């Protein structure tokens, strides 16, 4: 049984007293030698203070400091990255620019004006008014998120009804559901003069997460077609007048008849193209996508700023953890070797001490 502080004093009382009575004071020569040393002259430096910290104490201080620094960095990263509504501002500016372009007179050729492309974030539905008096190919796409699959079905039916209400029709419908999510793709043709109202009604079917508009000016195309039609009609009339004459040689008559037939054929073709262009300009094309996917709600834009900050901070910490894990894995052989070396050295030193003390 090991002796405690009190035990050995009591158990070996006489022996302890004798041991303490032994003449063990340092001789005068040693005392004078030590006194002669005096006081260390150099004051303590920071290096000296650092040396007083043991590795265990340093670890106890450094580990929480590192964790705190990492968490702080993650929070700062999250807050900075979550940002404000800068994207919304950028979109608004983009929209304003687009409206200025659309309002510009005499759009030449077939210029395409992409108006807006936003993904994920709920956006306020808005649409530039079609330019009156001009022929334009007006295409819009709209992605709307609805509550669930039941709502998806109802909204699809409502969109179809809306298209008819505004004098248009449904060019195609593609509705599919899978589990708790679903998607419905519709192509609606709406008269251009009523597209604005229809667009806003369609946007009210749910939460708009994406919208895009493309306007192609068709004025020049229609003008070219019309001029060609007039030219062809004039040509056909002239050939007809010439063919009325009875003095024409047979070969000339045949050539003119062939020219008239070719002109009539081309006239029919250009007239058909012109009708198609005018039809295109009179009906807008709205591609409507209704979705009930929950994943859409989980996109960055659908979160509050605090949620985004928390998610970014978490991502940062996860990244830092992955890096630390990687470093740990890479360095693990060295760490194991270092630990083995430290433990081995310590064991060797203790054995050496025991041996020296037993030999002394």
């Amino acid at each position, binding site marked *: *049984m*090991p*002796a*405690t*502080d009190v035990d*050995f004093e009591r*158990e*070996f009382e006489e*022996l*302890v007293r*004798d*041991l*303490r009575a*032994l*003449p*063990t*004071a*340092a*001789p005068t*020569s*040693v*005392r004078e*030698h*030590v*006194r002669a*040393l*005096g*006081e*260390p002259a*150099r*004051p*303590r*430096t*920071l290096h*000296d*203070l650092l*040396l*007083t910290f*043991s590795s265990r104490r340093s670890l106890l201080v450094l580990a929480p400091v590192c964790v705190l620094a990492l968490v702080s960095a993650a929070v700062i990263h999250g807050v900075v990255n979550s940002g404000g509504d800068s994207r919304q501002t950028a979109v608004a500016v983009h929209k304003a620019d687009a409206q200025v372009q659309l309002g510009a007179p005499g759009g030449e050729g077939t210029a395409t004006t992409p108006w807006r492309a936003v993904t994920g974030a709920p956006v306020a539905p808005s649409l530039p008014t079609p330019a009156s008096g001009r022929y334009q190919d007006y295409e819009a796409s709209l992605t709307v998120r609805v509550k669930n699959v039941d709502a998806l079905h109802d909204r699809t039916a409502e969109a179809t009804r809306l298209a008819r209400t505004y004098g248009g029709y449904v060019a195609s419908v593609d509705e599919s559901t899978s589990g708790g999510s679903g998607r419905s793709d519709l192509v609606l043709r709406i008269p251009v003069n009523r597209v604005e109202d229809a667009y806003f009604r369609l946007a009210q079917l749910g939460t708009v997460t994406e919208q895009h508009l493309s306007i192609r000016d068709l004025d020049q195309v229609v003008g070219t077609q019309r001029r060609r039609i007039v030219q062809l009609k004039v040509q056909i009339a002239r050939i007809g007048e010439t063919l009325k004459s009875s003095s024409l040689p047979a070969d000339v008559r045949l050539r003119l008849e062939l020219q008239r037939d070719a002109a009539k054929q081309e006239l029919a073709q250009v007239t058909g193209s012109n009708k198609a262009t005018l039809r295109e300009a009179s009906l807008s094309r709205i591609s409507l996508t209704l979705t009930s996917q929950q994943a859409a709600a989980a996109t960055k834009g659908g979160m509050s700023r605090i949620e985004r900050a928390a998610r970014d901070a978490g991502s940062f910490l996860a990244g830092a953890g992955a890096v630390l894990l990687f470093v740990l894995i890479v360095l693990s052989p060295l760490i194991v070797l270092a630990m083995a070396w430290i433990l081995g050295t310590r064991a060797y030193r*203790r054995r*050496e*001490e*025991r041996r*020296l*003390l*037993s*030999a*002394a």
Partner: protein
Amino acid sequence: MKAVNAVTTSWPGLRVDRPTFSAVAESELDAVHRYLLFLTGNRTVAEDLTGETFEKAFRIWRRFDPRRGSPRAWLCGIARTTALDHFRSEERRRRREERYTRDLPDTEESALGPGELETALGRLSAAEREVVALRVLLELDGPTAARVLGISTTACSTRLSRALKRLEEMMRDARN
């Protein structure tokens, strides 16, 4: 322990009262000498090592941190390292010069002393003598003594108990 003069370190946030080296040396000299005397079992060697210990302590005094232990324990740690270095060099010397016998210190009159207790102490191993010195003479508590020796508190208590029993038996035999 006697009261010692103290100074305060100049580093803000790390302010701690440190005794002066000369004050510590004055108050702890006998304790260190006692320890080394028991550890080496030789007065002459103990005196030399005591001087050497304080010279070392003088050189590294700036590293002493009173919050981590008493000056006595710190000095005993230095003394022990000094003594082990001495044993190591002695062993090398003996190996080189085989003319010198291993028991050379015992032939000197100044080992521990002529009395029964001193003789009995001489028969203990150095490890046993040093634990007796630390715990009985220097009155260090169990954990501090264990830290100086680099062993666990339990091992320290066991070694002390065994040393004192052996010493008592030897004294009883000597009286009988």
